[in-house]
């Protein structure tokens, strides 16, 4: 039995055993990963897996069970467990399943070549990345180079007659190295992930970035606690985007647990900010033809020139809010219920060159790394650890480390006054470099 037939048969079992509605999410996958260190393969991991997530509704009550055994007996057992569990949850008229039979055409999600590329070629790629990253004499230790690939098929069917599947895959490699000088240690790493093996960056490019990040951070100097302009490089997009994503999550909005809950249609930040969530981008790492419960994906503007235009919804949260699902049901695999999450979530590129933004900054911070949780989606407060470079007289002067930056989402979003043209659209969550006029920096 193929996966679609198996999913449909399992739905029939659910209905026969007393469910009023049911959904089956099937996943088959194959993974390969290995790590190379000091020119030798150190770890190889290989596996194939299957799993089913079964969601049932009994008189408006929802429950879920999962099994990684797709045998008839195990699936029957899982169905029984889910239906029994639906006894204890609360009935809700919003507990519904989608019925949109449409599928968005998204090109380039599956590279049929990856599996057939000889292991040796993949090992050579990782070995080359490590060797090239170690080339600079300032780099003294390798923390290894890794390669990983995964591919599989996702099938979703429900009792509204929805039945869809797609194949997807991807591969990536990364390298981490350490630069040392006296007692100082500084680490740097870089990775590249793509849908297609042929689209991966070269080992040279990835290695050079990892090495540069490590040695350029040597000899940091202290700076005083002060307010100054802060330039977020493309490496730290997540620090801004993560908190916004949490705040536009439709469930948080309903709960009032979002600093953007009551701001729809309002100017929430600088006109330079446009944020798009796109599930349809060809070859996009966050693209899929339909979301985690089968709703076709779209390209949506979340913030347009600073004005809040959209929240993210899955089917149930949309029903509670009285709107349509936005195709943002996300699955953490077959073992969990659909939540809410983005596809390719990016901030639109601006017109400036990063060099020009630096040149226009008499004194300030160029951020290369931000640690911590980013913007708190509940109240918009922001505080994080920071490292990067100090700018003096419009030029990079020296590296800095162990600083803090803090502010509020409101001040940060409204404070963006320059946006660069260096967006990397191949990342699933990305922003171009941008400058925030003034942020509190904690130092000496």
């Amino acid at each position, binding site marked *: 039995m193929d996966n679609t037939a198996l999913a449909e048969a399992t739905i029939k079992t659910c209905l026969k055993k007393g469910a009023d509605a049911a959904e089956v999410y099937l*996943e088959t*996958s194959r993974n390969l990963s290995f790590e190379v260190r000091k020119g030798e393969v*150190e*770890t*190889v*991991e*290989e*596996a194939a897996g299957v799993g089913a997530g079964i969601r049932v509704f009994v008189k408006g009550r*929802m429950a*879920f*069970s*999962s099994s*990684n*055994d797709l045998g008839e007996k195990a699936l029957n057992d*899982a169905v029984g*467990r889910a239906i029994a*569990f*639906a006894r*204890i*949850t609360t009935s*809700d008229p919003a507990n519904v399943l989608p019925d949109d039979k449409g599928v968005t055409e998204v090109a380039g999600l599956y590279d049929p070549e990856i599996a057939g590329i000889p292991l040796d070629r993949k090992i050579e790629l990782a070995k080359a990345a490590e060797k090239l990253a170690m080339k600079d004499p300032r780099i003294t*230790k390798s923390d290894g180079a890794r390669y*990983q690939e*995964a*591919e*599989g098929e*996702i099938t979703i069917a429900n009792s509204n007659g929805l039945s869809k599947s797609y194949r997807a*895959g991807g591969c*990536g490699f990364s390298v981490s190295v*350490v630069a040392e000088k006296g007692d100082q*240690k500084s*680490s*740097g*790493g870089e990775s590249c*992930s793509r849908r297609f093996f042929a689209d991966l960056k070269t080992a040279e490019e990835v290695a050079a970035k990892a090495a540069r*990040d490590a040695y350029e951070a040597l000899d940091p100097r202290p700076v005083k*606690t002060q307010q100054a302009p802060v330039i977020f490089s493309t490496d730290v997009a997540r620090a801004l985007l993560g908190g916004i*994503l*949490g705040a536009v999550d439709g469930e948080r909005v309903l*709960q*009032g647990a979002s600093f953007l809950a009551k701001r729809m249609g309002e100017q929430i930040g600088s006109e330079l900010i446009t944020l798009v969530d796109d599930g349809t981008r060809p070859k996009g*790492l966050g693209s*899929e033809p339909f979301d985690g419960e089968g709703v076709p994906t779209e390209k949506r503007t979340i913030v347009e020139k600073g004005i809040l235009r959209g929240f993210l919804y899955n089917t149930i949260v949309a029903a509670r809010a009285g709107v349509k699902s936005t195709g943002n049901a996300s699955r*953490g695999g077959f*073992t*969990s219920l659909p939540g809410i999450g983005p596809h390719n979530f990016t901030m639109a590129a601006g017109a400036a060159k990063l060099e020009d933004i630096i040149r226009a900054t008499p004194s300030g911070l160029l951020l290369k*790394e931000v640690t911590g949780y980013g913007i708190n989606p*509940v109240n918009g*407060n922001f*505080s*994080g*650890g920071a490292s990067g470079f100090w700018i003096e007289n419009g030029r990079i002067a020296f590296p800095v*480390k*162990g*600083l*803090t930056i*803090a502010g*509020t989402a409101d001040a940060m979003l409204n404070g963006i006054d320059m946006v660069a043209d260096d967006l990397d659209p191949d990342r699933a969550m990305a922003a171009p470099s941008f400058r925030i006029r003034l942020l*509190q920096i904690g130092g*000496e």
Partner: protein
Amino acid sequence: MSAIRYAVEDIPRRRFLELGLKGGLALAAAPSLLSCAKKGRAPAKPELALEDLDKVIARALVQGGEFAEVYVEHRISRSILLEEGKFKSAVFGISQGAGVRVISGDKTGYAYSDEISMDKLLRAAEVASTVARGAAAGKPVPIKEEKRPSFITVAVPLQTVADEKRLEIMQRAHDAALAYDPRIKMASIDYYDEVRGRTIANSEGLCLRDELPLLFFVIQTLGVGNGTSHMGRERLSRHSGLEMFDELKPEDAARAAARESIVMLEAKDAPAGKMDVVMQNGWGGVLVHEAVGHPLEGDNIARETGVFVGKLGQLVASEKFTMVDDGTLPCFRGTTNFDDEGTEMKRNVLIQDGVLVKFMTDILSAKQIKMERTGNGRRESFRNIPIVRMTNTFIDKGTDKPADILASTKSGLYVQALSGGSVNPTDGVFNFTCREAYLIEDGKKTAPVKGATLIGNCLDVIRGIDAVGDDLDFGPGICGKGQSAEVSAGQPTVRIRGINVGGSRARTR
């Protein structure tokens, strides 16, 4: 930058994937395909005969290699969410699987299967063994089943508990949170329990089986008022039966979360810059878990990348500072009877009176750095290779009185609760986010301040600890290092001189 970074997650389990600010290898192929190594699963217990396990181990060493191991796991989990007054969902997970590992020199091969059959296990053994091709082959010792002391006691087994009992506990927490204050607008109660069965057999002749219960109860409360909002949190967790809730009352935990939500509505902007920090006893020990514990893990010592490389036997911290990792504390969240490689759990003193005395190891790193096996080889599930992980990690108690520590601190920050944080184990730079913190003015705790970041270098921090209280306490958490692991962290009240605090307000004095 995507340097390796270890983190303690502060995000509720179900949102982990969506929101986690995770570092490490950023591979986002098909997000859901790559994340199949999640929590929760396992059905009818597959029992493999000893001679079958022997056969798999022998097959794993056919091509060479000195060590082979079979790990069989089954897991049954229940997760129930009560939020906005509704039992929104109930999730039942069943999973089973087995992994075969081969070690040859510094090389490791690993393969796993969801299906526990001799066919699949022998195939996994073949795949795992390819790394050892051409190496000298060790001769496996026939396995013999052993019994180990148990640090986990169960009075009310989770398997025997009616779901209604689980709901009742959740409802009690929910109602207590909302009754605490009218400004508590929402409570979210996340109940999780699992029973994980393990069989571990290896070429050294070891064969162990056991079953570990786990409870994880997370309460979050939303306070709204004074023009802002704050999500408070409290977590309860033990390897125990349902009797945990007789001792750790759900109502008390709910009120603790609600109290935090309300107090923090009045929070002012935190100051920025270097200051003295007093950390209250309990989960604050997560700071040393991150800042000191991760760099003391034997894998980065073997790679010679960690900040403590070459420092064994040296004075690395204040003489008041003793740090311990102890996997034997009865029923604690980080406790097991033996680690996921079968090594017996023990109390490992890592830093004694400021002197670095031990690194934590798994089988591979113990061999590489020629140290004892400390019982720190853990894995998230059969889908993962065991790696060096902490268990229950804490600063040991001292002799100072907590009230004196505060009173003798002229000004600074009093950290009552931390969220989580992360560390770069290479340079030792860590960061933490405060959940609940107050200004210290003239030796007194005064106004609450917004969630500031604490940042510093691990060596500076442990040298800067100049007061250690006598009030050791613990809290439960989740540690992320590529895989997630249940841990506890603990500490008495301590004072650390001169930490960089990341507030949004410039200090005026």
